[in-house]
């Protein structure tokens, strides 16, 4: 009696396995081929028609290549600075500070950045500093700063490079990226493009 029950149970289990497990495994294998393989290659194929074959946008200048969208570290006083980065602009390990708005350590960090900024830009008044230039971005690779953040660096750069402030302001004007279709989103400046244009002034 017990054996017969066990046998029946075993047969039932085997039937359930047959109805579900094998199809599940086979369907999974097919999905692997399709959604890991074919889909990926299809998108790869589309990428071959895109600028730089889908390897990210590149700017070339004086024989050197740079990624347009990836922030670079600019600490030199003769360049416009990028926004602070919590990962020191490591484009192989993106990240943010993840500090909360009330965290005393975080507020101290921002205060230190403001002080450093004032030391390097003595003509700038505190109230002119926009928060984007003293707060860390989300990715640590933010390629943009606000227009205001560029303008407050003008007097420093003009002095070091022996240029007039008007030249620099018009350079900023030329490099300002308007909102999408002139309607949506914030105005901004790509720091790398601005600095390349700055180097090309002479």
């Amino acid at each position, binding site marked *: 009696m017990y054996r017969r029950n066990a046998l029946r149970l075993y047969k039932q289990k085997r039937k359930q396995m047959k109805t579900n497990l094998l199809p599940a495994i086979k369907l999974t294998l097919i999905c692997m081929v399709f959604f890991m393989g074919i889909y990926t290659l299809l998108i790869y194929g589309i990428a071959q028609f895109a600028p730089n074959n*889908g390897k990210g946008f590149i700017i070339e200048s004086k024989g050197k290549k740079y990624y347009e969208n990836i922030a670079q570290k600019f600490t030199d006083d003769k*360049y416009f600075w990028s926004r602070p980065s919590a990962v020191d602009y490591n484009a192989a390990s993106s990240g943010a500070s993840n500090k909360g708005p009330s965290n005393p350590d975080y507020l101290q960090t921002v205060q230190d950045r403001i002080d450093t900024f004032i030391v390097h830009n003595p003509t700038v008044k505190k109230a002119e500093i926009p928060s984007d230039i003293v707060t860390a971005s989300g990715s640590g690779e933010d390629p943009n700063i606000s227009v205001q953040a560029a303008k407050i660096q003008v007097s420093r750069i003009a002095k070091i490079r022996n240029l007039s402030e008007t030249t620099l302001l018009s350079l900023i004007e030329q490099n300002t990226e308007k909102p999408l279709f002139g309607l949506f*989103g914030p105005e901004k400046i790509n720091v790398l493009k601005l600095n390349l244009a700055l180097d090309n002034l002479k």
Partner: protein
Amino acid sequence: MNTEILGIIVIFFGTLALAYPLGKYIAKVFAGEKTFLDPVFNPMEKFFFRLSGIDAANEMNWKQSMVALLVINAVWFLLGMLVLMCQGWLPLNPDGNPSMTADCAFNTTVSFVSNTNLQHYSGETMMSYMGQLTLQLFQFISAGTGIAACAIVFNALKNRTTDKLGNFYNYFLKSCTRILLPLAIIVAAILIFRGSPQTFNGKDTMISLQGDTMHVSTGPAAGMIAIKQLGTNGGGYFGANSAVPFENPDYLTNAVEDCSIFLIATAMVFALGFYLKRKKLAWMIFGVMTVSSLILLAPTVYYEMKGNPAIEKMGISQPFGNMEGKEMRFGPAASALWEITTTNTSNGSVNSMHDSSMPISGMCAMLGMMINSIYGGVGVGFLNFYIFIIIAVFISGLMVGRTPEFLGKKIEAREMKIAMIIFLIHPFLILTGTAISTYLYAEYPHYLAGWLNNPGYHGFSEMLYEFTSSSANNGSGFEGLGDTPSVFWNVSCGIVMLLSRFLPIIGPVAIAGLLANKKFIPESSGTLKTDTGTFGVMVFAVIVVLVGLSFFTALAMGPLAEHFTLFAH
């Protein structure tokens, strides 16, 4: 008008408008009616079913569907563990990233199979291309699972008495191929043409303008980004998700990605209306969801654009509001919109760091996940909302003295018990999880000092957010939480994700299956109408009361306390 506000208005309402025709299309797919993509997909699906030995015309009852669902998910789990623990020596690993430890592989696999995409790893350094592609597979098929479960419930809500509710495999495969795939191809193409990479070349090395050596991670990212957004998965290719310029290059891609977050989930509501030919019911559900969404969105946008009072005190200006953890090309408004849409749905991708947003924004994000059905995850969002409808029908039935009925089926003790259990699982998992971790942290402050990145109320919020995100199958995080090397967070969140994925699928399907088997009672003057504005208000009230009662104390100890401290002076 301000270009930032204008931008988010267009993204939000544009998506809702797009969801309507998509819903119509989804209803046709579920009903097996003719669509314009038939010539491509009919032969393909036939071929797939023949290869895997599945008879797609074989109708299943709800129990058989759920067994099929669980078995195939178990297969995926084993596959995921295998790939992640061996990826170090498997092919497609140009960056030489190592295999995962068992606990991290467990967390990651559960996370992606359950459509959560909580990431206790960093994409660039801990995942090979093979690993990433496997995760991309899970992003398709876990989303397909959710949509299939929803299709079964739709089928059960028809005016008839039956236990045959369609074929799970059929719904599943069609959700992947006919709904997710075409949209993913479109979104991926847009991303590529705006600067996202899709390459197999590995890390690039270059010299910066200032002369520093830089390593730049790339990879087959665009395809994965498209499906992570559309399938409410959220697990990004790069560590900082859609904040990374390669993952989200500009305002246009941001609009497309944000739209993808809640497009399908919203379309599912319209699909219900077309499929059952009950458009008024769909509008009622859509109305409740949209109003709830706007209620959470308004304060978030306001506080993010207003900025941080502690920074204001330092004397600098905040023309772009609270910029910590945000990207300049999106600005605070689009970041706030994303924060709310990604937590309302179970997506969990981020374009700004929630840990650094203002306390009220963080609370609204958590509330979205606590409700977990304002549009919600693809498929499962409606299933969660269905539970709230059942509870609302029952309560209003009691209030007016009528038998609780929904779509011509009597709701009785058994269905109510299931509905209550499914509702209670969510607060139970979140609050016990948070309580245990808070206890451990308070008891062993030296040993566990690395857990929290922020002191005080905000630290508590980090733990509360992590469990809320796990239980809502969301996957976003207050990423300051030191969860990456921690066995405790890997295992506890893994278990929470597993339970909160499959029980809330089985529960609603069971209720719908039981109701489908009951006698159909035609509508009469004594029937409580469920497709009216009044009933919509009732459902909204049920959501507010239940979620409020469950979570108010926890929120008061975290984000609310932080808010009042920060704005006190």
